[in-house]
């Protein structure tokens, strides 16, 4: 992503508003935009979801495939997360090899899903050391309007909860796949992410595109259902103080509870 140039006067107006406790779109500092979540939108994928936070839109697909486990972890399945910033999502997104933003998004999402123990990877083993399920999680950013990380984690979680894999039996050395009998993937935990941006010395939740462009620093916190932290990522050039980090964790714990309501119950 080529960094977009933000006019100085836009930065000033955003900062001035936030210091007065207001935001350009009329939200409170800790208020999210409207969230919508649909699952099972792609018939060709075993699990899928479309998540919208405001105008930010991400389509997530999960594809299981049988493969060999990594040699150092023969007894667990494989989870691979990849993200794609589609050029149609924003004027400054370019086609081509993944860039910093794209890699960061994929890695932070992967960390939150992995360390949040969404999947019981041990249950994805078919023949230890030889055959395991590999889950490919693909994030497609269809429309960019700020706060990709929260949307990506929410979408990934929804897509995985929606994923069904065919049941397998072992006959001799062969793995027989029964596509008639699809079973839901074992889900253990439901972590979610909350991103806070530091703008003009204040912390704001769910930064919009304008706010994403002018922020001094941002912190994304991944939290499990019980409120314990499973992932964290800091961005931006300005440091955060200890108090600010503790405060953002507090806000994130509050906000992820709200976010959790948007997950469809199955």
């Amino acid at each position, binding site marked *: 992503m080529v960094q977009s*140039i933000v*006019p*100085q*006067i*836009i*930065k*000033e*107006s955003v900062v*001035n508003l936030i210091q*007065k406790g207001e935001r350009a779109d009329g939200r409170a500092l800790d208020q999210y935009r409207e969230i919508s979540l649909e699952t099972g939108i792609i018939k060709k994928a075993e699990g899928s979801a479309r998540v919208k936070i405001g105008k930010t839109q991400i389509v997530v697909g999960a594809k299981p495939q049988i493969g060999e486990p990594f040699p150092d972890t023969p007894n667990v399945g494989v989870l691979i997360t990849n993200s794609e910033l589609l050029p149609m999502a924003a004027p400054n997104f370019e086609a081509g090899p993944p860039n910093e933003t794209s890699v960061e998004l994929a890695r932070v999402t992967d960390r939150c899903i992995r360390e949040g123990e969404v999947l019981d990877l041990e249950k994805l083993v078919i023949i230890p050391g030889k055959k395991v399920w590999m889950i490919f999680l693909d994030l497609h950013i269809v429309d960019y309007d700020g706060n990709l990380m929260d949307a990506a984690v929410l979408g990934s979680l929804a897509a995985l909860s929606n994923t069904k894999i065919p049941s397998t039996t072992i006959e001799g050395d062969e793995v027989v796949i029964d596509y008639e009998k699809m079973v839901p993937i074992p889900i253990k935990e439901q972590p979610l992410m909350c991103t806070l941006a530091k703008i003009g010395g204040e912390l704001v939740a769910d930064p919009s595109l304008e706010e994403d462009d002018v922020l001094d620093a941002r912190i994304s916190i991944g939290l499990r259902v019980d409120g314990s932290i499973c992932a964290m990522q800091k961005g931006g050039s300005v440091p955060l103080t200890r108090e600010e980090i503790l405060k953002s964790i507090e806000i994130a714990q509050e906000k992820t509870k709200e976010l959790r309501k948007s997950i469809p119950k199955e």
Partner: protein
Amino acid sequence: MLLIEDKQIVVPGEILAEGDFHSGRGTFKDADKVCSSLVGLVAVRDKKISVIPLQSKYIPKRGDVVIGKISDIRFSMWNLDINSPYSGILPAAEVFGKEKRELNRAFDVGDVLFLRVVDVDEVKKVKLGLKGRGLGKFRGGILIHITPTKVPRLIGKKGSMINMIKDQTKCEVVVGQNGVVWVKGKPEMERIVQKVIKTIEEEAHTSGLTDRIKNMLFELLGEKTEKTEKTNKEEDFEEELIQ
């Protein structure tokens, strides 16, 4: 024979009229038929048919006034983003004359300027200038983006719409032909102007818009009139920049 009604929405390729009609903007002629070349609203004026697109990109035209932001500084010119597929250039000579000075002392990347399109050549290289009343760098305020085709509607007949907004909110408002609008006033008034301009953009095709905007302004300002009446005397925003 006219096949459509005035202000009807049409799609590309749709036949608008047959026979003795002239093809205006957004249309093309195929034998004796006038067809639309884009998605938009039909405007029939006597025998001339044109289609006004619902959304458009700004195509630079000589003499237009535009609002641009500086995206790059080169050896002897600035590059500007003018909300168009074509980027604009502002030569240093336009600003300094024959004097030689450092460019970034005058304008830096991220500054927003009000400019005039001096020339557009055949490869759509857009030369901009700062010579004219009110042209120059903006300080403070907010920017609002609208579709360039809706700009005439925002200004209104002889500026009726824009002057009403300026009078009611006591804001300075500058409209660029490229669909960028700059507003400066009290922060709460800036927000009201933003809301009003977005409404105008959405409802540009409907009739009786000026009256409805007038009512909307009264409604939005209703709660704040008492406060503003007191402060009006202290800070009287004069409209300095009229295009």
